[in-house]
């Protein structure tokens, strides 16, 4: 009983800390409350995040702000077409004495203290690099210099430019599945925020803007523990279990679930995806959302709030519909929630 009380108090304290974290990031990144909330959820669900959006909507700024507010060691690489997996792991150079040296690269440099690994323009890197990320993301380990490195606090943030298709490589399905969320970022729609972004000089100097954020609002080393406490502390009732399984079924087999989208053959729409790992991540993220909302049990709204970001990129459409993905998948997600009864 005492344990639970202590846990409750701790969770409440952390919820306040999470609120401070969100406010602190929001002070630098305006009009992106939803993206900030989703990233906060991802941090406490211990999941990796892929940001997607147009050029200049603030993807990188958001991730830098998050890294600053989260504290901990931070590494950043830029995806390029000639990048090789070893470039991430090793740093090779000729030293002053003329001898070649091999030293730890970006991933290993901070050793096991690394908390945020920020991969900019991930779709510019080749699939070999994506493959290296698979293990780093799924197991948070890496073998180099003949030993295994562990990164218990590691969180991978990546961003991807949606507009460009030249000299880019689509992420393999396995790599996409390892991202907890794929968050689409749009420029803020609020007129006030738009005006501020364009005319307020504070937003023009990104470095100064990031430096103005309170650093290390959260203790990054403790987040893994608090994440586990959240997963144990938030209850899922049988009704919500039934609901999630019904959502899954409707997403994978929309035809039999009674979902009709105009101009689409529902029987030949979904090729696969929506893995059990994806569903598990959905529930993890939903539990964090319930915790942030101050509840200790899940409600359907928690599932709905994170569903598009967690599930949409795990659904694979038949090739005929793949090009229209950006329109079809959100409509499908909406239809799923309009169809599956809750409770």
């Amino acid at each position: 009983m005492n344990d639970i009380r202590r846990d409750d108090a701790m969770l409440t304290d952390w919820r306040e800390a999470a609120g401070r974290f969100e406010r602190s990031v929001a002070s630098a990144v305006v009009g992106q409350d939803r993206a900030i909330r989703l990233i906060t959820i991802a941090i406490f669900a211990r999941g990796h995040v892929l940001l997607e959006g147009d050029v200049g909507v603030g993807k990188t700024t958001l991730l830098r702000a998050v890294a600053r507010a989260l504290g901990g060691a931070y590494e950043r690489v830029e995806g390029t077409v000639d990048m090789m997996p070893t470039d991430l792991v090793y740093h090779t150079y000729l030293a002053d004495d003329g001898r070649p040296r091999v030293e730890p690269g970006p991933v290993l440099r901070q050793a096991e203290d690394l908390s945020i690994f920020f991969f900019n323009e991930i779709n510019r890197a080749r699939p070999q690099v994506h493959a290296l990320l698979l293990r780093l993301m799924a197991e948070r380990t890496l073998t180099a210099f003949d030993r295994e490195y562990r990164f218990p606090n590691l969180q991978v943030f990546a961003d991807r430019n949606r507009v460009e298709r030249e000299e880019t490589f689509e992420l393999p399905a396995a790599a996409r599945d390892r991202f907890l969320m794929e968050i689409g970022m749009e420029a803020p729609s609020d007129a006030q925020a738009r005006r501020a972004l364009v005319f307020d000089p504070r937003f023009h100097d990104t470095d100064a803007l990031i430096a103005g954020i309170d650093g290390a609002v959260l203790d990054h080393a403790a987040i893994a523990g608090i994440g586990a406490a959240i997963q144990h502390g938030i209850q899922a009732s049988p009704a919500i279990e039934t609901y999630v399984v019904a959502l899954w079924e409707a997403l994978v087999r929309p035809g039999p679930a009674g979902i009709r989208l105009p101009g689409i053959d529902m029987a030949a729409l979904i090729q696969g995806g929506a893995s059990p790992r994806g569903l598990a991540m959905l529930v993890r993220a939903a539990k964090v959302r319930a915790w942030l909302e101050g509840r200790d049990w899940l409600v359907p709204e928690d599932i709905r709030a994170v569903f598009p970001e967690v599930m949409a990129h795990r659904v694979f459409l038949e090739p005929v519909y793949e090009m229209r993905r950006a329109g079809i998948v959100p409509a499908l997600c909406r239809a799923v929630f309009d169809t599956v009864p809750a409770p």
Partner: protein
Amino acid sequence: MRRAVSTSLVPLVLASSMAGPVQAQVRAVEVRAPRAFGYMLGDLVRAQVDIVVEDGFAIQAASLPQRGALAYWLDLRDIAVSQADAGDARRVRLDLTYQTFYAALDVRSLEVPGFTVSFVSQGASGATTASARVPAWTFTISPLREILPPAKENPQDYMRPDGRVASLDPRPTLFTGLGFAGLALAAFAGLARDRTWWPFRVRRGRAFAAARRRLRGLGGRPDAAEAYREALLALHRGLDETDGRRVLADDLDRFLDRHPAYRGQAPGLVAFFEASRIAFFGNDTARARGRLARPEIAALAARLARAERTA
């Protein structure tokens, strides 16, 4: 008929064969007509041409006159050819039907133009042709009416009185028309039903009325907690059906925006959603019943059903 005509035919022209070895192949040409007078504007003028030729000669169809206008006042409407043996020769008979359009002002003779018909005989030493000249012949045409009628006081007297026409009974046609109109209407109704046009576009069922009925049906369930959950579910389905989508607790404001008729029930709906959350997802039916008891759910459903009727 033809026989009757032919018996009363009178010969008009008789052209015997001319002397000479070549012409001997056509022995005689005779034109006959029922009469040579008494024709008026638009009458059909029939003529029969008998040509007697040597045995073995056959008529060349291409040499027959063509149907159509022969002159501004004369059409050839029809021509028929028949053949018969006549002793040691062949008799070819042309039945010609002309029509005259000559508007005569007095009685006068008109000449029907003659024509030439060719015959051919296929012999061992090649084909032999012969031609028979059908001569022109005349008939007499008469005017339809007087040219100078006697003066009359009333110009209308020049007109002939209208013939009396028995009035037709329009009712059978009318009834048939009405019958088909009815059939068309029925077919259109079937189409409208198939396409769910108005008035077959079904109104949304009275969802809250159905929820209230379901709530009444739940009456005496032994398991109070289970009955309570089913009561909540009944109202949930009513809300879902009214909105055409699933309404979650957070959607209440948008639901009320879309269906302002229920805005008056907002406090009840808020309490309902809170109780439903606690009952289904908080797993605490007792606390939920404290928030909103069974009778209150029934009362809320009744109020919603009333609002629904005015919506």
